[in-house]
């Protein structure tokens, strides 16, 4: 049992860290694990070593444009699950909602930088999405 559990817990750690931008609490990791079990998704994602060690590399690996519906890839649907679980926790809510207390100009500046980064990384994501299809 622990042998089956560990890869899923590692996956939870990676995806929740990616979505939250910080290390997730152990409660969130367990909740992700239980959620996958409840959905009958027992198999861990075959994450390659680099993103499994450095969650930020998922910025390049996250598939382009297939988040919902039957065409969603396994990785994007797991990221979606991690997102919902992260948001429905005080840790995630502080990250996703309390940020709005920063001055508007600062928030918009940060957002502009993030969007700029998105445009830079987009060709890499597109290439990796096609390669992994």
């Amino acid at each position, binding site marked *: 049992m622990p042998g089956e559990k560990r890869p899923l817990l590692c996956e939870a750690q990676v995806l929740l860290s990616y979505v939250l931008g910080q290390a997730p609490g152990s409660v969130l990791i367990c909740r992700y694990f239980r959620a996958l079990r409840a959905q009958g998704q027992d198999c861990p994602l075959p994450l390659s070593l680099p993103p499994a060690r450095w969650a930020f590399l998922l910025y390049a690996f996250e598939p382009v444009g297939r988040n*919902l519906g039957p065409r969603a890839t396994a990785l994007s649907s797991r990221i979606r699950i991690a997102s*919902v679980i*992260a948001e429905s926790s005080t840790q995630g809510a502080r990250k*996703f*909602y309390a940020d709005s207390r920063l001055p508007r100009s600062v928030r918009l500046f940060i957002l502009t930088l*993030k969007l700029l980064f998105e445009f830079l*990384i987009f060709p890499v994501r597109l290439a990796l999405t096609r390669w992994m299809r």
Partner: protein
Amino acid sequence: MSAQADVLIVGSGPAGVSAAWPLVQAGLKVIMLDQGREGSGPPLPDDALMSVRLNDEGQWRYFIGEDFHGLAARKRETPKMKVPGFRFVLEGFEQAYSIRATGMLTTGSLAKGGTSRMWGAGAYPYTTIDLKGFPFGLEDLDESYQSVMARIGISGCGNDDLALSLGALYPLQPPLAMHENAKRLLERYEAKRCAGSLAGIRLGVARNAVLTRDLADRKACSLTNMCLWGCPRNSIYSADQELSALTRTGNFQYIDHAFVQDISSGYEGLCAHCTDICGDHRQTLNFTAKTIILAAGAIGSTILALKTLRHFSQSVPLICHPALALAMCIPERIGRPLAESNFALGQLAYQVEDFEQAENFSFGVIFTAEGLPVSSLAAYMPFTRPCSFSLAQALMPSMLIANCYFPGSFSACHIEVTPQGQVLVGGGYSSDFEARARKTNRRVQHFFRSLGAFPLPGSLQRATLGSDGHFAGSFPMRKFPSVGETSIDGEVHGMPGLFIADGAVLPHLSAKHPTLTIMANADRISKSIAKRMLGT
């Protein structure tokens, strides 16, 4: 087990409850039969959404559910369908009636209170133009609108530009406090209207079956922004709230775990045969009465009526609302703080006139995005998830979501019961719908742009047919009914004593939300039944 009553009502939704009141008030003994499913989740806190999000460690139980129901990745359904607290409302309906649906969703409920347990609370009365094709006029429905609206409490504005198309003289509670985005939109609209530069689209305050003043056991809305997840104050009307008041009258009995499988006629009148389809004991219960009113939702009532009439393998038309949804943004509001208090259901309503056929207008409701989870918005964005979260978070205070309903004449659906008891439902659109949807979408987008709300690229979505649960037209009321139709009073042709009081008897579905009209019509039908039974 068997029991007798003057009238049996099948179903406890808005139509059933509205049908019960006039009968009970006339002194008739009424038994309401219902499966009566209830939810089992934790009770929602009466706290602001933001406070729950930031402080409540157990919030995942309300937002995802202990069974993780909220994680389902379904597209093109309403956000409420993913709310764990409402899972029980729609659960088991298709299995109970053995429904196989293609091309549409057959939204229905076995819950106590029916689909009103999770409705959007839009309450828009029909006017003369909406009643075109009905075998009676507004004057026959007016008194029922008055009594239903006074009973359930509708908040709204009686003197805006939409008032004429929503009935200006009905009793209304004061409107709910508006979100900044809705306020801006309405102010700009008023300015443009005074300049006479808007033609063909009218905007006004939404009318909701939501209290702004306490009414009986229900409390006024406290703007916690939790509307999507449920309402612990019962400010949002749902039919189950009225069952205890009905029971207190003394001549009303609510029987749950009684799913009506079949109706037969005999010497003593009509007999409803029920079983508990969700419980362990599958004991059959029989209830006899001279009159049975079907109010099990348009699909449930249609199935029961077709079975009772033994009309098997005959395809019956079913009308529903085609609908679109569009997200918009008011640029100067991007990145502003989220509102501290808000009402998350309809803020504004608009009507798009049809210059060729007046009754073919489209109708929509505008919501804010602030009650929605950020992750649900982020899922539609093409960026990486962390960036989509940041963008959704910045856009949320500036966003408005408008849905747009088209008249039921643009749908082409049907329902059929096989001799084996299987129910086949098929959905589709009329041949002219695509052109009409494109034209209306262009007009609506232009209208909102002119008011400073810009549609977000790629946000236009077509709702799955039937996902709103508005069904009608399968047993239409006619002045001179024939097979498969009902009389003006909702009596099924060929089965004396069997009445239908829900959406199934509406001959036409205007683009407005039909629930209030279904309730008023049930009240009208029931008053006529009471008169007939008491010989007055």
